[in-house]
């Protein structure tokens, strides 16, 4: 009898070309590039090399694109250069580009799945750590640095050491209104930002099966914040339904063959994992972060930790530093933390379902603080407008903008001012992430909406209950 294999083992072996010195040379099925990939294109130019497989390479303009004034020239010349440099590199190398003017433009980790370029069983890379998002489809997807991007451009392959196998099982039913973001923050708070270091994470269990594709993408997006090499969910009927009639989803005989192959993409009964973690979904509460790392997450009814109660001196020092940066006091109730603005966007939580969840709380209410809503892609934007969600955001006093990375990282100019506190649907609350001195609290879209209408961090559940 053959040894039972994990889903990850299967993904790994189907891409292995050769082994050498404890590493394997892997074939890359899909490579996404963005404006930030310019270092790798320079490397290519230095060698006088061409992209090995342009048909497997796709470009997306997202990190630097303006979210206002589309159609007009980009006012900041440096930003304009970053966007036009990608246009040029893609054109020179025959790469299909979803550029600033393309109606399919959006954040790379939203666009790939929505166009059917992200499929189960693929090995997908991109010079961006949140490439883990694509694992939601049962793909092996991970972020790489510029040297590796250059290597993939030139060879369509990558040297990798096989990560260990980890399974995080989330069983039970989430309370109403809670979602993948709460599960992700609960996991990271539990295992830490290096908890899954060196591991490929498979998310399993009834709570994961119950998630939509949007939810699974949010969860796999955050796998990197737990230190994981990648996050994967085995494909099932939810996955196949999502993929039907997307622009690049295989058709005809190729689709039938694909479905046959995709049916094998699950961990066999009795397969061995190096590390297993279980989470009880019924115990997950709405989570928010208080500090400067995604592991600094607590249920909304908790208080800012007190470093004097921490026994580990390094940890106490870290807590003190984080509280100081965030302008908080030990023991302060999280619901007493007043905010200055909100941001709804990013590859974590700006898909249609996320916008619906936020809009449901904002409907017939007014935001007490200013805020920006940047849909995950131009398609998401059109869909939201068809559903009238843009009206709900605008009527609540928030700005409805175009799609891009926007205030998640601020390099297009959408910044949080120094000292300002922002409730954000993004994935990183690092120091200065949204701007020098900016203070970020990350949470789900519904929780950001609740913070907006309350003017402080707040539990969204009473706001939901009052409506029904």
């Amino acid at each position: 009898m053959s040894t039972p294999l994990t889903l990850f083992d299967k993904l790994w072996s189907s891409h292995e070309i050769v082994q050498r010195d404890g590493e394997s040379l892997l074939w890359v099925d899909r490579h996404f590039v963005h404006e930030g990939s310019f270092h790798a294109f320079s490397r290519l130019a230095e060698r006088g090399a061409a992209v090995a497989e342009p048909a497997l390479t796709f470009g997306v303009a997202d990190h630097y694109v303006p979210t206002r004034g589309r159609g007009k020239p980009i006012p900041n010349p440096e930003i304009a250069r970053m966007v036009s440099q990608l246009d040029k590199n893609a054109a020179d190398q025959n790469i299909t580009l979803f550029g600033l003017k393309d109606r399919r433009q959006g954040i790379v980790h939203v666009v790939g799945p929505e166009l059917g370029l992200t499929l189960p069983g693929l090995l997908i890379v991109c010079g961006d750590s949140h490439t883990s998002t694509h694992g939601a489809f049962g793909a092996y997807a991970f972020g790489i640095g510029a040297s590796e991007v250059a290597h993939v451009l030139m060879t369509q392959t990558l040297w990798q050491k096989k990560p260990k196998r980890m399974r995080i099982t989330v069983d039970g039913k989430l309370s109403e209104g809670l979602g993948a973001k709460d599960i992700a923050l609960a996991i990271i708070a539990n295992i830490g930002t290096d908890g899954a270091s060196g591991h490929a994470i498979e998310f399993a269990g009834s709570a994961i099966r119950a998630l939509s594709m949007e939810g699974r993408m949010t969860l796999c997006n955050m796998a990197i914040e737990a230190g994981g090499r990648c996050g994967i969910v085995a494909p099932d009927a939810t996955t196949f339904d999502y993929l039907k009639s997307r622009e690049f989803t295989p058709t005809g005989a190729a689709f039938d063959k694909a479905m046959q192959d995709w049916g094998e993409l699950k961990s066999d009964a009795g397969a061995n994992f190096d590390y297993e973690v279980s989470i009880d979904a019924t115990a997950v509460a709405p989570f928010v972060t208080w500090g400067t790392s995604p592991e600094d997450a607590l249920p909304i009814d908790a208080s800012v930790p007190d470093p004097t109660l921490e026994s580990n001196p390094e940890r106490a020092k870290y807590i003190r530093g984080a509280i100081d940066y965030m302008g908080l006091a030990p023991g302060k109730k999280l619901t007493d933390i007043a905010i200055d603005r909100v941001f709804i966007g990013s590859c974590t939580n700006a898909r249609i379902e996320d916008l619906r969840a936020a809009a449901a709380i904002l409907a017939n209410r007014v935001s007490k603080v200013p805020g920006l809503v940047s849909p995950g892609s131009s398609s998401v934007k059109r869909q939201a407008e068809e559903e009238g969600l843009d009206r709900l955001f605008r009527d609540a006093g928030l700005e409805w903008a175009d799609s891009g990375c926007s205030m998640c990282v601020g390099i297009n100019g959408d910044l949080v001012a120094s000292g300002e506190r922002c409730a954000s649907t993004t994935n990183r609350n690092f120091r200065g992430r949204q701007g020098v001195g900016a203070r970020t609290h990350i949470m789900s879209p519904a929780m950001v909406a609740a913070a907006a209408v309350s003017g402080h961090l707040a539990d969204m559940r009473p706001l939901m209950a009052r409506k029904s």
Partner: protein
Amino acid sequence: MEKFTRITATACPLPAENIDTDQILPARYLKLPRKGEHGKVLFQDLRFDADGHERPDFPLNRAPWRNAKIIFGGRNFGGGSSREAAVYALFDYGIRCVIAPSFGDIFSQNATKNGLLTAVVTEADGGALTEALTQEPALGVTVDLGQQTIVCGDLHFHFTIDPARRTRLLNGWDDIDLTESFRSEINAFKAANLKQRPWTVPTQAT
């Protein structure tokens, strides 16, 4: 790529947890082309205040550590963004080795591709090293990749590193040349893959 075999240099302790790549190189400098000048903006917002003045309490701004070639960091050093420019910043500043209890995975991979050693030590050995460097800041630290040892005064301990990364650093290998030597295997894989999994090549629906 520059080889790494062994160095003896001043080591700057920076033992805070979760020093992510956004701290090492803030996003607004990601536009910089590679000209060997990323070192100027290394730890920009930790090293300098809003007016561009040095923060005197930041370790790299202090006399013995200003010219450090080794950084001793805390848990999850280099976590977060995949930006390789964080490694360029450390390297261009003159850092050749970072010692820490754990590293961001992509950061470590990027470091290896640029001749920067990421040495993993236990929390206990790390604590002893911090202690020694606090007592005697100018104490030289020797990191030997062949032996996988760190020596600092009376302290002598081992570090871990992935064997393949170690070989790469010791030899200063360029991956592309190595990969090209497997060209026929790659071509064979590509052809077989096209037959077995034709659906992996995207074709646009019409």
